[in-house]
């Protein structure tokens, strides 16, 4: 691999040729490949979501049978979780930004990095292939015994999830090694941008939790094919045991999705408030606090599953502590805005949107962690609303912030600020219109995964459906002006936001080897203030 690239070239136009992309070892190109793949899957997952909302516009069947509906929400869930939200920020954004922020030339294991992309692609293909084998109707949670009894192609989807798991594991492995070993001179732990800290915590979760899911799903697949009875009560197995195995991964997975989002926000706020981030150390610690607690709260998904009272007590108690580090972060962001000099660029707008929805998501999370309250809310639309407020609200808003923040760095071009604001408005309003009513559906006890519902719930469902289409419109606009900016956008300066983190200290788009000179870090990532700000 070359040690230098010709002056004036960047990672996009050097080296040339399709082949140079397919077999590239460059983290930036791999990041971009992830980026566009994920966006494509996001489109598909979104279409499934709109299908669901259309079906639920009125009680009874609109245009699909219960079977079709079950497949719709299964694919929506599976695609959004395994193919979109989990790789969205770490694999796409992280791959590109992490080495730049560390001042490294590449990730520790470029080949592994490329491999994990192709594994991801392969897993995705298998996942979509199930569509041609009758589809899957288990829901993304694959609960046994249903997933072993169903005649749909669940076994294949389980395999797909297994494969995708390894893509995620290898990315995590790569990042941890990179952060440990490839920091530029002077890039001490305490000078690490918080985005790196977030990715670090995320990667550790990926490494520790994903293998468990991988094997568990394999066991279910084996059970489905050969009928061995680890989870099948009729053969002495235990379906609740599956739920334990599943949630040991899938709860930390929630933080695989959210932590990188928090990282992005940590980058955006100080830059646009032109002021040092508040409580840097506490922020970093909070990220790890969340990551750690994530592993010992999974039982709160099982309060009504026949889990014992003792277990419910313990898990409910521990779950409460998730809120503490999260609170610390939220308050610290506020404090960072205080006496700042706030610029209303698109990323900052998405930060506001993020705060708005993430706080709602977080608080309702506390409600769900409360034993007594959860008994009623469990598996109702209240839960649906809650995790969409966290997943979509938290992660997706942060993702949009990240796109708008790093767009000039990725492509060296600027998008239209005006259009950005318009689509932001649609997404923000549409999102709340979609999911806020669902809290009330939850209060009224409408169970989730219902193809047909009582007339009591009609009005709120219709609001929700209308909202979902506003969101769709918002993203359509975004796709339009970003696509336009990609080719026609005006040239962007190297550091349009006057940011201090390392990725902005090189040209945009960056050259093949990231930095023309070996960067040396002399100050913290957010030392904004009179002199530098």
């Amino acid at each position: 691999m070359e040690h230098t690239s010709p002056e004036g070239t960047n990672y996009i136009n050097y080296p040339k040729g399709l082949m140079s992309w397919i077999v590239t070892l460059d983290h930036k190109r791999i990041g971009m490949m992830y980026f566009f793949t994920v966006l494509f899957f996001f489109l598909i997952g979104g279409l499934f979501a709109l299908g669901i909302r259309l079906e639920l516009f009125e009680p009874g069947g609109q245009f699909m049978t219960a079977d079709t509906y079950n497949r719709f929400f299964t694919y929506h869930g599976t695609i959004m979780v395994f193919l979109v939200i989990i790789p969205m920020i770490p694999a796409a954004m992280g791959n590109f930004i992490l080495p730049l922020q560390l001042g490294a030339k590449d990730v520790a294991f470029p080949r592994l990095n490329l491999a994990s992309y192709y594994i991801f692609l392969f897993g995705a293909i298998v996942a979509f292939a199930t569509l041609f084998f009758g589809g899957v109707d288990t829901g993304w949670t694959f609960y046994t015994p249903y997933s072993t009894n169903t005649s749909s192609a669940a076994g294949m989807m389980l395999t797909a999830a297994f494969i995708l798991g390894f893509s995620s594991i290898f990315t995590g492995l790569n990042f941890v090694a990179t952060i440990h070993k490839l920091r530029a001179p002077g890039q001490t732990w305490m000078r690490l941008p918080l985005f790196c800290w977030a990715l670090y915590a995320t990667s550790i979760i990926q490494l520790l939790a994903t293998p468990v899911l991988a094997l568990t799903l394999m066991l279910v697949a084996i059970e489905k094919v050969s009928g061995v009875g680890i989870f099948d009560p009729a053969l002495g197995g235990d379906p609740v045991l599956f739920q334990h195995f599943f949630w040991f991964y899938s709860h930390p997975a929630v933080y695989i999705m959210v932590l990188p989002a928090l990282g992005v926000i940590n980058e955006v706020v100080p830059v646009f408030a032109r002021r040092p981030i508040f409580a840097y150390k506490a922020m970093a610690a909070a990220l790890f606090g969340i990551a750690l607690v994530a592993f010992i709260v999974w039982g709160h998904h099982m309060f009504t599953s026949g889990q014992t009272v003792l277990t419910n007590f313990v898990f409910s108690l521990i779950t409460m502590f998730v809120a503490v580090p999260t609170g610390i972060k939220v308050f610290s962001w506020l404090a960072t805005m205080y006496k700042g000099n706030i610029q209303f660029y698109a990323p900052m707008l998405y930060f506001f949107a993020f705060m708005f929805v993430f706080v709602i998501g977080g608080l309702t999370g506390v409600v769900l962690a409360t034993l007594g309250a959860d008994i009623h809310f469990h598996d109702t639309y209240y839960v649906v609303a809650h995790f969409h407020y966290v997943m979509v609200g938290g992660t997706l808003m942060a993702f949009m912030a990240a796109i708008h923040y790093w767009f000039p760095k990725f492509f060296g071009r600027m998008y239209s600020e005006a259009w950005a604001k318009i689509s932001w408005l649609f997404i923000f309003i549409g999102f709340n219109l979609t999911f806020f009513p669902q809290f009330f559906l939850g209060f009224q006890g409408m169970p989730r995964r219902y193809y047909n519902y009582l007339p009591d719930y009609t009005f709120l469902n219709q609001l929700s459906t209308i909202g979902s289409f506003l969101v769709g419109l918002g993203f359509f606009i975004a796709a339009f002006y970003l696509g336009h900016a990609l080719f026609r956008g005006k040239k962007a300066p190297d550091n349009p936001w006057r940011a201090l983190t390392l990725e902005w200290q090189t040209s945009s788009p960056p050259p093949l080897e990231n930095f023309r000179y070996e960067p040396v870090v002399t100050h913290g990532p957010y030392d904004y203030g009179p002199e530098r700000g």
Partner: protein
Amino acid sequence: MDWSFIFPIAASEIARSWDTLNVFLLVICVFFFLVVIGPMVFFAIRYRFKPNRKVSTVSHNFTLEVIWTAIPTIILMVIFWWGWVVYRQMTFDLPQNHKQVRVVAKSWSWTFQYEDGRTTTNQLFVPVDTPVRLIMTSEINDVLHSFFVPNLRIKKDLVPGLYTNIWFKPEIVGQYQIFCTEYCGAGHSEMLGKLIVLSKEDYELWTWGKEIELPPAVGVGAIPQPPGLVAKAPSSSKKEETGIQVAMLGDAELPSMSLVEQGEALAASRGCVACHSSEDRPGIGPSYVGLFGREVELADGTTVIADENYIRESIENPHAKIVKGYENVLMPPYPGLLTELELNALMAYLKSLEN
């Protein structure tokens, strides 16, 4: 105060205490929402960009950080404890004198089995102001289901092969919606039922097999459904159409025996009594008398409480737990030889023999 504009009508004491808890939680949520979003909006306006504004460079403030770590922690502990109290009420506060109904779920219908031996499908009849305990399971080769009555704020999964418990004490006469809340396939959203709370008199009539008028629907599901959307169960489907709603018995005629008697007959017809006597004397196997709920000492020295799960195991797989003193007499296992309803009958019978 009445919260039914946001929570469904509370039909039991537990439901009311749930409401109080959730009003508290709502207040907390709104408060903290304002605490965060209020300042955010204010700062955004107050400190909007000005070319040469002097920005603060304060990078941390210990006292502040301690405060916003400590205060939430305290509040969270309060929330947790309150939640636990309500949950404990839902779990443990079952009065001694309660009715028992055994519930068996299969895709996609509910079967309710009463102490007097009758069974109904998708309609659970209970008297008002009487604590009712549900002992629930799902057909062994079926999938997970979950029993949920919004107006009572109770929910519990039905797991194949495992007995779960739940109890409630309805205080308002009426018909309440029963949902299945654990995804169970294509019929999931059709797996609905009605909890029919009758006045004590009507319940009396119903137990004697008289036709009685059903009370009006209350709370969730009260809005009449247009035809075609009505959730129908096999046995209830016919009568739905006829103008006046009348209570269905499992199958118009009364059962010949009570659940206990059925169990007794079953024990006889299956030759259980050959080894397990119903008088208080050890036979070839342990006696049934005073067995249920007792602490049983096993051959390996450990002890277990003889509850539903233990009894069931001893029927399906007698060798797993051998009672002390019976090591060398092996009972033939009866896996799959008894239906869920038969097992329930047997257990009711054993329970009747506890002293």
